[in-house]
């Protein structure tokens, strides 16, 4: 692990120790397997303990971890034969949104998600997954295309938020997001939204109107970034940690408030320690839910989606919670 978060240090130290023992055992020929087994056991226990007790700010850092699997990794593993598509047909291509069609369980599947990029060069190219209006418009274009060919849609959410830019405002960032929020209710194929890292504000929700909304265990979803909240409400950018606590933005929180359908467990130590296993778990959940949703006619699907959001975060449902 080259990119360590502060709370991962004890884990890294133990991992290093295990490696040292293994090297030493190999060099000297001394059997250290008993100590190694114990160390590995300890490592598991310690890792589990650390990750089960993360505070919200640590979860925010984890959700943004550079080594976490990204949208492109999910696409590659879930629809390996994918073909990706570009452009909103109006203005530009926005690399911050990735959209691809492929085969999943012998059927078509459209996957659309925020593209953060996997290294600095890619990060800059796709603007760290902060989309412009043309990105949201491309997403909608591809959803309509999927609908025509009866392909279910998976949206993968991983963004700090929509791009705050001059041209973005000129081209109607508000309108583009608003239109997606409205139009996604009228798409007649199943939509599943999965938050894999950062679910930032309207920019995340702009592709997030799903029949099912899932969050990976160490992802976050929030009305505003903790930093933004700190500078607006606390007038102090350094209060991001406090803001993260107040915003209740972890998967665990949102499952508690009944705002998401399911929290998808990650491998011990987080998705970045075993991306393949992490993506497989998401894939299995998608498979299960698509089977369920495929039983509904397109009309009852749309009606159920409307009723879901009618109930979600409604006046009645919020009455059950008091801070």
């Amino acid at each position, binding site marked *: 692990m080259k990119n360590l978060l502060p709370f991962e240090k004890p884990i890294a130290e133990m991992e290093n120790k295990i490696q040292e023992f293994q090297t030493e055992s190999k060099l000297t020929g001394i059997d250290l397997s008993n100590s190694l087994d114990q160390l590995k056991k300890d490592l598991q226990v310690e890792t589990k303990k650390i990750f089960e007790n993360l505070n919200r700010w640590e979860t925010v850092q984890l959700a943004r971890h550079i080594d976490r699997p990204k949208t492109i990794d999910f696409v590659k593993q879930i629809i390996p034969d994918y073909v990706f598509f570009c452009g909103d047909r109006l203005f530009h291509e926005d690399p911050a949104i990735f959209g691809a069609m492929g085969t999943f369980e012998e059927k078509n599947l459209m996957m659309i998600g925020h593209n953060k990029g996997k290294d600095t060069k890619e990060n800059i190219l796709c603007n760290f997954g902060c989309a412009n209006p043309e990105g949201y418009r491309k997403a909608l274009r591809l959803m309509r295309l999927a609908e025509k060919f009866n392909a279910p849609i998976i949206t993968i959410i991983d963004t700090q938020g929509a791009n705050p830019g*001059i041209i973005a405002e000129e081209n109607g960032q508000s309108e583009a997001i*608003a239109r997606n929020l409205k139009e996604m209710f009228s798409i007649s194929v199943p939509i599943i939204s999965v938050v894999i890292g950062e679910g930032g504000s309207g920019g995340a929700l702009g592709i997030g109107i799903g029949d099912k909304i899932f969050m990976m265990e160490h992802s976050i979803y929030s009305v505003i970034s903790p930093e933004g909240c700190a500078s607006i409400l606390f007038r102090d950018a350094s209060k991001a940690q406090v803001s993260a606590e*107040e915003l209740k933005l972890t998967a665990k929180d949102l499952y508690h*408030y009944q705002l998401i359908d399911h929290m998808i467990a990650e491998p011990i130590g987080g998705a970045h320690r075993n991306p393949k296993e992490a993506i497989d778990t998401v894939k299995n959940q998608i498979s299960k839910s698509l089977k369920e949703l495929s039983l509904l006619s397109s009309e009852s699907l749309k009606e159920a989606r409307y009723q879901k959001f009618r109930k979600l975060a409604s006046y009645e449902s919020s009455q059950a919670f008091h801070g």
Partner: protein
Amino acid sequence: MITFNRGNIPIKIKEQEIIQSTDWIKCPSCKTITYHKQLAENLQICPKCNYYFKMNAEQRLSLLVDEGTFLEINQELSSHDILGFVDSKPYKKRISDAEEKTNLKEAIITGTATIEGHPIALGIMEFEFIGGSMGVVVGEKILRLAELATSKNIPLFIVVSSGGARMQEGMFSLLQMARTSGAIGRLQQNNNLFITLLTNPTTGGVSASFAFLGDIIMAEPGATIGFAGARVIEQTTRQKLPPKFQTAEFLLDHGQLDKIVERKHIKRLMGRILSFFYRRELA
């Protein structure tokens, strides 16, 4: 007790209250100081430079609807602190302060009325209530209003004045963007007209949901309208913002609005628009 006019509604106020509220109001644009009564008579527009001060929901109502026709619905819905949110003030306190300040229970009033004789479902946002921000109750009231308009087969008109989503309600607040947009979608699928009037300010999560879903989108002169905050854009892009950036005039130029309307003309224009789309059969 004496009576004087505020907008079109005669209001009776004790003399002592008048003395307390004899505010001289300074125009943030041209710095001219105007007596509040004169400002009210001029529809809260600076007589010197035409700067648009914010109107409160009550003033807005008397400006727009046929007198005595507004029937409020869902007025009893009020917010509570879902998350236990504390910033510089506990959210609970913010709510009670806002209630006291505005004499309203939330940042929007909704109901039915007529405008120049045309029946309409109407929502008016109140900026003074926590910046007109949208939390569960604002979202719920808009959703119910849109559903009412759909079932009654009447047009929907919302006067927007909001800084965006209400951060103190976290994800509960963000999801109101989806809920209101879904309900507006149903209204429009039912071939009912949705009109929005964007007033100063219309930003953030409110801008990026129902505000920009209008079949017809109008704005008041000089109103700040946009998704991201200007300061954030400046800091992120490190570019100088173009002149008039995120004003109604800027948006009109960029094809984001249908019209900029002066305050005194809104009602008449609404009447004309409604008479096209809801042409009554000649008797």
